[in-house]
């Protein structure tokens, strides 16, 4: 019997990163801007997508990939707004992985502007998995409290934009949006911060413009 030590030095997320890189390449080649939405359950991801569907109707072609542990509910809500949606049910897994997105990609129409991916509601695990997205947006709703960024740093560290949601509820809550933003910015200074109420429409113009500008940059090859 022989014993042996083998130096491996391999990233455990390496396979996921490779698949994600292929997805990103393909979506860029097709001129589609992909956005990964990440937050704890109920922060308002689907409601935000419904509001974006209304805003982009007739102007930009969008589609949505929905990730949930169970049910088609979120995809049905999106389809009800006239937007194509695919539901991935993970059957227990607490996050989406690039391979799951890759399976759906073949069905996504070629003539598309924006592809949103709503991750499984969870502020922790999805942060570790690149889905091949161009932009990652983390949502934090006012009822969750302004002390969350430092408690869940990885989600904020890996995001490009922070969307503070449900701003219409702020008058009723001890939630300081400036404090939430400052705390997130101390983790990731490059974060773009938006404040929106998807129900009332506040801040939606700025957020929609952010996606449209990112799409233009992608298509001009300066992503």
């Amino acid at each position, binding site marked *: *019997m*022989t*014993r*042996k*030590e*083998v*130096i*491996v*030095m*391999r*990233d*455990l*997320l*390496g*396979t*996921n990163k490779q698949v994600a890189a292929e997805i990103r390449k393909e979506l860029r080649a097709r001129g589609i801007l992909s956005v990964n939405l990440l937050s704890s359950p109920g922060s308002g991801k689907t409601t935000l997508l419904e509001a974006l569907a209304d805003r982009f109707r007739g102007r930009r072609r969008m589609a949505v990939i929905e990730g949930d542990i169970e049910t088609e509910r979120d995809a049905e809500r999106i389809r009800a707004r006239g937007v194509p949606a695919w539901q991935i049910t993970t059957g227990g*897994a*607490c*996050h989406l*992985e690039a391979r799951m997105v890759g399976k759906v990609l073949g069905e996504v129409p070629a003539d598309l502007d924006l592809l949103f991916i709503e991750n499984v509601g969870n502020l*922790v*695990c999805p*942060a*570790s*998995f690149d889905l091949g997205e161009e932009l990652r947006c983390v949502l934090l709703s006012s009822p969750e409290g302004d002390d969350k960024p*430092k408690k869940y*740093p*990885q989600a904020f*560290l890996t995001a490009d934009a922070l969307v503070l949601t449900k701003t219409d509820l702020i008058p009723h809550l001890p939630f300081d949006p400036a404090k939430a933003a400052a705390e997130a*910015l*101390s*983790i*990731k*200074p490059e974060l773009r911060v938006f404040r929106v109420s998807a129900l009332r429409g506040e801040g939606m113009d700025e957020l929609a413009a952010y996606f449209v500008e990112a799409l233009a940059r992608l298509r001009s090859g300066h992503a």
Partner: protein
Amino acid sequence: MHELSLVAALFETLEEKAREHRAARITVVRLKVGKLSGAVPELLESAFETYKKGTIADGARLEIEEVPVRLRCRSCGGERLDVEGSFACLVCGGRDVELLEGRDLVVERIELEADEPPSSS
């Protein structure tokens, strides 16, 4: 709780390495787990214990080295370990800091046993 997915990926690597080195069994697996990797060492351990049964690494010992967060300030060049979860520079207060270490999740090395001497190929 995505540690089970991570351990599944780990076993893909372990099986590949075992084939490559014609191993009869893997006895030690050593991981480096960054504080900001998003993985919890205890959860990795319990997922590993569950997953290994009946595999090439049945009976293997999992060793985890936790890697602290190390930052460099782009303004003053100072390097330091992050102790309080604040990403601002403790020296100059600068916010433009670069994460040098602490996000990785790496299989560093394994130890294995082969029943017969490996061929020279």
